[in-house]
């Protein structure tokens, strides 16, 4: 039960409201019953009392004793509410002179000038008794006369029962209405929560604005905390970005100096040993620079795949742009980039930066591992609902490793020890493919080299 409640405010709310309604309904029922009971009893008591008083009022003191004349109406009026049995007893000076002698005495200690009511079992049933006492003057002495009139209360019971039924129906009706209302109330009370969740949920991944808009008083602390959290997050991200930029700058600028100086030194010496040292230096600089780049790239990709910033992208222009950017690098080694794109635009829904990053990595990879004078083909095709970017090269191929192995982080092929690389390039491509519900395949190409295929669904 606790678990059932713990996981839903709505259920909790509804359940509690229903419990309250049930309690109130039951209270209503019992209140009505009690009130009805009291009301009917009071009414019947009044009539019983009136009957008793009617008899008492007719008491006269005469020479022979107390004269008693029971008015017809005294008993006749008792049938006004119900057909209950009637009993009576008149006691003069302690002696029952007429009526039912076994009618019980009234409780001691109460003044009987006005009718006293009490209930008692009598013979085969239960009765309500009204008792009144009068002092009658007989020959200068005061004689106490006790007049009691009793009535069964089956009529009252019947009325109370029917009222109780009505009260029960009322209670049930009330509960049913309360149940419906509590469901409605729960929905309406929770609406602001849903609205807040919806508006925050609809935000894009880059949206770190504080949550504004009117919120109910109870949600204000939560929204304030949320906004506090958002601003701390934004500050942290900004700090991180700034830090990265600063770090990048402060690391790379001296590295550039080292590299430039090494190249200068290289021009100025013919000593083989010195040359070898300087070559090593330059390689080391290139290594660290490339690793840093790829690490940053990878981190960005991982971050972005969680929060893609989707838009409609024309793959054709993207492929052409990447090819153009890579051209000079390829050209340095007389590698030709052969780009094939269809005549029409190829639009997909995706994150531009992620796909461009993946493609750059693929092309850079190919350029790195292709021999001079080689050929790299970049083709964009559309086939059965998918857009494929195929990068082929005439490089070293995979040399037995599988695509899965190569796309592991920091995993490098067995045949590339002499080439600078961090091993993250293909990992990035695989992750970008996964983020777009696409596929990445890597295989040896017939005739030497490798063929990488990045397949993205057309949407």
């Amino acid at each position, binding site marked *: 039960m606790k678990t059932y409640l713990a996981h839903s405010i709505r259920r909790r709310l509804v359940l509690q409201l229903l419990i309250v309604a049930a309690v109130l309904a039951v209270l209503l029922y019992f209140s009505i019953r009690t009130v009805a009971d009291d009301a009917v009893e009071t009414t019947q008591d009044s009539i019983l009392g009136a009957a008793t008083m009617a008899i008492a009022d007719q008491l006269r003191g005469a020479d022979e004793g107390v004269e008693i004349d029971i008015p017809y109406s005294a008993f006749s009026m008792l049938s006004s509410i119900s057909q209950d049995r009637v009993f009576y007893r008149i006691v003069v000076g302690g002696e029952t002179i007429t009526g039912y002698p076994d009618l019980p005495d009234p409780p001691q200690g109460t003044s009987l000038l006005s009718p006293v009511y009490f209930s008692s079992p009598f013979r085969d049933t239960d009765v309500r008794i009204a008792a009144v006492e009068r002092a009658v003057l007989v020959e200068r002495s005061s004689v106490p006369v006790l007049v009691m009139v009793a009535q069964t209360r089956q009529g009252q019971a019947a009325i109370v029962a029917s009222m109780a039924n009505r009260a029960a129906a009322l209670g049930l009706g009330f509960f049913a209405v309360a149940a419906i209302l509590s469901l409605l109330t729960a929905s309406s009370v929770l609406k602001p929560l849903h609205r807040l969740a919806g508006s925050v949920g609809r935000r894009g991944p880059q949206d770190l604005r504080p949550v504004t808009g009117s919120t109910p008083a109870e949600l204000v602390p939560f929204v304030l905390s949320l906004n506090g959290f958002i601003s701390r997050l934004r500050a942290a991200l900004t700090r991180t970005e700034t830090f990265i930029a600063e770090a*990048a700058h402060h690391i790379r600028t001296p590295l*550039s*100096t080292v590299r430039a100086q090494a190249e200068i030194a290289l021009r100025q010496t013919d000593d083989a040993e010195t040359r070898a040292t300087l070559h090593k230096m*330059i390689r080391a600089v290139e290594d660290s620079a490339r690793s840093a780049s790829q690490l940053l790239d990878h981190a960005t990709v991982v971050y972005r795949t969680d929060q893609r910033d989707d838009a409609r992208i024309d793959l054709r222009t993207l492929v052409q742009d990447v090819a153009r950017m890579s051209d000079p690098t390829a050209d340095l080694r007389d590698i030709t980039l052969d780009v094939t794109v269809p005549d029409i635009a190829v639009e997909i829904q995706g994150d531009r930066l992620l796909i461009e990053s993946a493609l750059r990595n693929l092309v850079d990879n190919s350029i790195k591992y292709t021999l001079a004078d080689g050929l790299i083909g970049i083709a964009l095709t559309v086939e059965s609902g998918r857009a494929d970017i195929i990068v082929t090269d005439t490089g070293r191929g995979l040399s037995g490793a599988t695509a899965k192995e190569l796309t592991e982080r920091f995993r490098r092929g067995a045949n590339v020890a002499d080439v600078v690389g961090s091993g993250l390039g293909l990992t990035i491509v695989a992750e970008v493919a996964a983020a777009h519900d696409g596929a990445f395949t890597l295989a040896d190409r017939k005739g030497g080299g490798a063929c990488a295929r990045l397949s993205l669904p057309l949407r």
Partner: protein
Amino acid sequence: MRFLLVEDNADLGQSVQKRLAMDGHAVDWAQSLADAEDHLGVASYDLILLDIMLPDGDGRDFLAAHRRAQRDTPVIVMTARSAVSDRVALLDTGADDYITKPFDFAELEARCRAVLRRRGGAAQTQISFADLTFDPLSATVTVGDEVRELRNRELRLFEILVAAPGRIHSKAQLCDRLFSFAEAVSDNAIEVYVGRLRKKLAGSAAKIETVRGVGYRLTDT
């Protein structure tokens, strides 16, 4: 080429300036944006090499202003940031290309050449040697009526040789300049490219002479 180098770091700026000069380029070095503006006010350049983080402002603002003023000097941005988004943003702001620090000077040269080629313009003059004309930008040698295209390494090799005709260039030095430091280079790699270049020069008075054990030199026969 005439470069305007905008870089505030003293060591780096000095190194780049010296290294580019070694390749025969003329480099003016400004250490701040204000400085750069001064330079631009008095001289014209083939290309601006722009650093992003400068003491008196962000290079991107300079870039934006440069474009707004519709000056058509191409700009290559030297950036320490390598995130794709940054690169894309740079290009959107108006850079013609960018290169990540630390960079390979050969790559820089290739990018400059590409940018200039894209921009068109008759900035580069043609070089005449012996009985041929050499257009470094279009990477062609014209022998007689025939226009022969040079591939990248052939072009670079020829540029090195034609910059100092008659001088002997050692294999080692040629290797440095033609191949990246990350590559493994075979022993006869230079010979291969010399051979290819010779083919392109066939029929002209320009000849590449092998000086056994020393190197190569370009001569006008």
